[in-house]
Every structure is written in structure tokens, then in C-alpha cells.
């Protein structure tokens, strides 16, 4: 490691020791506590210059190389800070899309407000457009200098707490499905917007449904041209690749003590069966960490291949399922008695039933395991693509 990176690690570590919240697992037992923790921690990071290391250098807090970003996230994981759930879409998805597609007016208007804590959510998925995103049906009709939007969005992360929304809408039904999409920036305080939280099976509410009823969006709030929405959306979806999984893998590694604690509590420290399963899991986590690390190294060297990111995500998601399944097993009957969850507590809280159910988030969201397997087989392994052309008529 270079001296500059060593110095940065030293600085970040010292800063985290002074500033990182210690008691957040306690304060996040209510929604209000969660929101206050998230907002307070983000404000500290923004003031300390660590909130947006990935931004271009003309913006405050930005201009850090990938190696520096990696180091910062490693230190976050090590210090067991709260993950930045509330501001994640804002600092990554919204910002990256604005940097790439936004006019200078749009950037000047929105980017500084992100650092001040404005929250963005994503309005892409719909009840009938999940893995098949091109199937978006929410309509936007142009009337003078506004679009009038009607439809329903779902799985909008933190949508119930957000101020702004990255909205993918259909402006045309002609031609290829992708060609009729347009990308809008929606102020969620606009009349006709209703956000309703989704109650997840583990008890948290990290997502919302958005109902859009004759919602007017100024044409000036469009990103890219009309019909360019698919291309803009691709920027949004590829805005964050690698760092999150590196951080999450490191956090899973750092949470092995929770399983170790249970093994000791059950006096099973000499139970070869459980030790083997635990050992196998520890090695799989090490392998996932090494893969995430290698992926970022390849990215830094400019050697990333299409599909590499899918390997990391699939390796992480499957290993996380195994981690939580072993936790649930060793949690035994205790894990079956309901305990209140920690909101935004991360993937490994030690509330095993909740963690086990929450771990599906990574096998389904952000491109399900099945979509990742398609990408890996087609892009990395050279298998032929699924033939197109299966239509509704064939179903009849």
C-alpha cells in the first residue's frame, strides 16, 4: 500500500473513532430513531468529507480514487458504522445519473442539496416490471411544458421518507419497449403522489409503493431526451458496482462472532458437526471477500469484464443465505420467539429469523440470482441468449 493510502487509513480510522455512532443498534429500535440516526450520521460524514468520496472532484467531498473509496468502506465496515441506507440512492444513483445526463442547471440545483441531506428514491419497478424492467407501464403524457403522470411504482427504497424520485415512465407504446421510455425527476411533494410503505416479512419497512395520480412534472425536469429513458436508467443501475458488496462481505466476515457466541451459549464448542459447518461458512465468506476485492482491483486496473459484477453479487447473496441459515439453525427455539428488530440494522443483527428472511433481499433485489445467472452464462461463459419473440398471442 502506498504511503498516501496508509495516511488516509490512519486519518479515517482516527476520525471514525471520534465520530462514529456507537449506540446506533439501540437507537434504531424505532422508525424515528432510525431516521434520526441516519440523518445525523450522514451530516457528520458530509461535514467530515467522507460522505461522497466517489463524486467528481469539483464537488465537495469528491475526487477520491477507487482505491481510496475502497479503503474508506473497509474502515466503515471495521468500525461497524450504520450503513447509509437512507442517503444511498441519493449519493450514488441520483448523483451519478445527474453527473452523466443532467444539464448544468439540473446539477447545480440538485447536487448540493444531496449533501445537505435531501433524500432520493428510485421509481423504476412496477407490479408488472420487476426483473423485466422494459415492461414499465406508468404513463406520462406531454401537455405543454409538463408531463402528466399516472401509474404505480413499487420497491422504491426508502420511498416513504424521500424528497425526490428518479422516475422511469412510458411516453410511447410504439416500437421496441425500451424505446418508449423517458426519465423524469419527480418532487415527491407534488400533488397526486401517495407513498405507502411495504411491510416486509421480517418486520422492517425499507421500501414503498408510489401511487401517481395525474402528477404534473415539468418538462425541464426530464433527464435526456424523450425516448432515451432506458439509456439513462442503465446509468442509474450501474452507478454503484463493487464497493457495496465489498463492504457487505467485510461486514459478514466481521459478524461471524454472532454465530460463535451462539455455539458457545449452546455449549457446542466440541460439536464437530457444527464446527465444520461454521468453518466451511467462514471459508466461503473469505472467498467472497477475496472475489469482491479482486473485482475492485480489476476495475481499478481497467480490466473489468461484463458479467464480473454478477459473480460477486451471486457469490455474496448465496453466502449470505448460508450465513443466516446457519444462524437460524444454531438460534434454535430462541430464534423462533419474536424479538423486535433493529431498523436498518444490516444483514446480520443476530435476530436470526429476521436476518434469515431479510437475506432474500440480496437474492431478489438489484437483479435476482436468476438474472445474475443469465448474465454470467451469457456474457462470461458464451452461452447463447434466450431467443426473443415469445408473445402473449402464443399464450392464448
Amino acid at each position, binding site marked *: 500500500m502506498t504511503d498516501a493510502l496508509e495516511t488516509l487509513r490512519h486519518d479515517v480510522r482516527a476520525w471514525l473513532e471520534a465520530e462514529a455512532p456507537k449506540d446506533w443498534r439501540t437507537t434504531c429500535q424505532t422508525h424515528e430513531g432510525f431516521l434520526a440516526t441516519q440523518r445525523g450520521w450522514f451530516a457528520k460524514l458530509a461535514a467530515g468529507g467522507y460522505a461522497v468520496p466517489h463524486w467528481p472532484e469539483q464537488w465537495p467531498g469528491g475526487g477520491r480514487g477507487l482505491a481510496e473509496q475502497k479503503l474508506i468502506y473497509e474502515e466503515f465496515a471495521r468500525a461497524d458504522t450504520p450503513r447509509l441506507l437512507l442517503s444511498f440512492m441519493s449519493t450514488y444513483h441520483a448523483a451519478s445519473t445527474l453527473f452523466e445526463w443532467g444539464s448544468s442547471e439540473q446539477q447545480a440545483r440538485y447536487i448540493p442539496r444531496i449533501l445537505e441531506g435531501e433524500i432520493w428514491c428510485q421509481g423504476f419497478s412496477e407490479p408488472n416490471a420487476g426483473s423485466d424492467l422494459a415492461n414499465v407501464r406508468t404513463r406520462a403524457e406531454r401537455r405543454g411544458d409538463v408531463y402528466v403522470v399516472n401509474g404505480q411504482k413499487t420497491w422504491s427504497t426508502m420511498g416513504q421518507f424521500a424528497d425526490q424520485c428518479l422516475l422511469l415512465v412510458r411516453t410511447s407504446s410504439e416500437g421496441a419497449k425500451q424505446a418508449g421510455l423517458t426519465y423524469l425527476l419527480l418532487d415527491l411533494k407534488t400533488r397526486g403522489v401517495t407513498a405507502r410503505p411495504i411491510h416486509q416479512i421480517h418486520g422492517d419497512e425499507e421500501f414503498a409503493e408510489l401511487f401517481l395520480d395525474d402528477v404534473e412534472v415539468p418538462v425541464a425536469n426530464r433527464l435526456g431526451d424523450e425516448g432515451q429513458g432506458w439509456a439513462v436508467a442503465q446509468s442509474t443501475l450501474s452507478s454503484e458496482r463493487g464497493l457495496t458488496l465489498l463492504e457487505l462481505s467485510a461486514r459478514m466476515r466481521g459478524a461471524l462472532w454472532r454465530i460463535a457466541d451462539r455455539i458457545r451459549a449452546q455449549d457446542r464448542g466440541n460439536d464437530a458437526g457444527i464446527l465444520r459447518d461454521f468453518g466451511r461458512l467462514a471459508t466461503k465468506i473469505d472467498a467472497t471477500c477475496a472475489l469482491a476485492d479482486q473485482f475492485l482491483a480489476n476495475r481499478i486496473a481497467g480490466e473489468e469484464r461484463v458479467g464480473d459484477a454478477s459473480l460477486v453479487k451471486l457469490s455474496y447473496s448465496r453466502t449470505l443465505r448460508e450465513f443466516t441459515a446457519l444462524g437460524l439453525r444454531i438460534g434454535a427455539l430462541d430464534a423462533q420467539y419474536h424479538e423486535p428488530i433493529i431498523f436498518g440494522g444490516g444483514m446480520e443483527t443476530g435476530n436470526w429469523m429476521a436476518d434469515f428472511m431479510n437475506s432474500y433481499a440480496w437474492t431478489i433485489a438489484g437483479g435476482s440470482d436468476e438474472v445474475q*445467472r443469465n448474465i454470467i*452464462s451469457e456474457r462470461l461463459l458464451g452461452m447463447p441468449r434466450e431467443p426473443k419473440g415469445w408473445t402473449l398471442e402464443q399464450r392464448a
Partner: protein
Amino acid sequence: MTMTRAELQDAARQAFGGADLVPDAERAWGLIAEMGWLMMTVPEDRGGLGLGREAAGVIHTEIGRALVPGPGIAQLMVIEALSAADDLRERDDLLARAMGGEVMTASLSPGATLDCVPDADRASHVLVLSADRVALVPLDGASLTERETWDKTRRLFDVEPIAIGLTLATGDAAAALGERIEAQLLFALTGDSLGGADAILERTLDYLKIRHQFGRPLALFQALKHRVADMKTWLAAAEALFWNRALDPGATLTEIGALKAHATNVYRAIAEDAIQLHGGIGLTMEYHCHLFLKRATLNAVLGGDADHWEERVGRRALEAG
């Protein structure tokens, strides 16, 4: 290392990549010695190339990929032990002979008896590891019993030497050296397994692309695509961990053992499913699938099996957590 991993890989792939699987043992051994693979990890002041564990990783991966027969893993264990034997008068001579290709072998399953010793009938010496002594023992007059294995790419012997041999280390130094050699064995088996897993996966992909059933290539069936995607994912993660630990001088024996258990699990799973994905032809002796599966299952038991290492790493993780 002065040569990059990719350069070394290219050179190695040229040596064995073009040829058939399981190249002729004698020719392969000549090639290995000629290319300097046996002097790769020996320090420069002892006549070697002074390359690290990463270079050894490349060699073992390529040997595994082409199912190269011969005592490569054992020979490198001997060479490692000789390099460390600072007090031995005959060291430089023996080391030069071993690096030049004179076969000196060792057990791939170190324990109370000398079994799983590859190519003992061609070897001049065998390495003997015990708790308080590491020795290089001449095989003159030794009793050798060849044990026919299912894996036809390896020839293993039970060995009972009669000579006392040359002492390379005693006492605490012997224990430390024994551990180092054990780690090297496990690391070598890992490389061999990951190379083999990559090769059989590649061959399976080729087969899925050319084999047609129901009027389309097998590669178009999503059920099969998803299986090979899973294989690729586990393999990629295991490979990442392999290179990561290759470059980590602080990696412990338990960590290398856990890596070996993981890599052989992956190899075995891929080789097992490869037969299923090949269908009937995968069950024939003429086709190559079974060669990988048999080498995978042998690698899985050599040097301590997954039960052994997973329990050890589990215990360590319990103590750490």
C-alpha cells in the same frame, strides 16, 4: 515476482495446453524440469529463480488443468525442505539434482506411515516427516508396493525405506519445517484442483454449445445455463481466495487447509455435475470427464479431508469470534 502471473501462465499453458490431457509422464517430467519449474521457488543464492508462492500456484494450476501425471507436488515438497536445510553439507548437490529433475518424492498424505508416495519406483530419495525429525532418505533397497488407484493420472506407492538418511531438521525446527511443507502440499493440491475444475468446466461449456437435443443446443436450456453459472461463481470465488492467500505470507496452516478443503469441494462438485451435463458419454471410459472426477476425489482426501480442515477452521473461528 519478476515474471507476472499472466506471463508465467501463458508459458505454462503453451507447454501443456495444446497437448492432450494426461500427457506422457516421462515427456511431461522432462518438460517440467526443462522449463525451470522445479527451481522456481528456490532462493536465488541457492541456484533457484527466487519466485514466490504465486509462481508455484501457477505451476500447480497448469499441472491440474492438463491432468499432468508425475511427482510434481512431492518433488516441490522435497525441494522446499532441502532449501531450508542450512546445516546440511550435501544440500547444494542434492538441491541441484532435484531441481534438474532427479525424482525425489514424498508422501501426499503425511502421517505415521509412508503411503501415497508418487512415483517412488523412479525416485532416488523420499522425504520423511516425523514430529521431531525431517529427513531425506535414499530409496536403495526400500520395499515399494504400488497401490492401484482409481485416479489413473497418479501412481502411488507404500514405501518402507531401510536407510536412516540425511537429517534436514530436528526438534522444534523439524516441527516448523514439517508445517511449512504441509502447507505447501495443501497449497499445491488447491492449485491442482482449481486448474482441473476450470478445465472440466470449460470442456463442459464446449459440449453444451455443440450438443443438440430437441432441435437446439443444450446451451440454450436455462436449467443448464444456471448450473454452469453457479459453477463459475464458486470457482471464481475459490480462485480469488487462492491468489489472495498465495500472496499472504502470514496465511496460517489452518487457513491453507481450509482453502484446500474449499477448493476440492468446488472441484468435486463441478466434476460431478460435468458428468451429468454430458449425459451418457460422460459415463464412458473413452471420454475425459471421469478423469477429472477421479482426480478431484483423490485430491479431496490427500493432505487431510474437508471434515478435518473444516473442523479445524471452525474451531479457530470460534476462538477468534
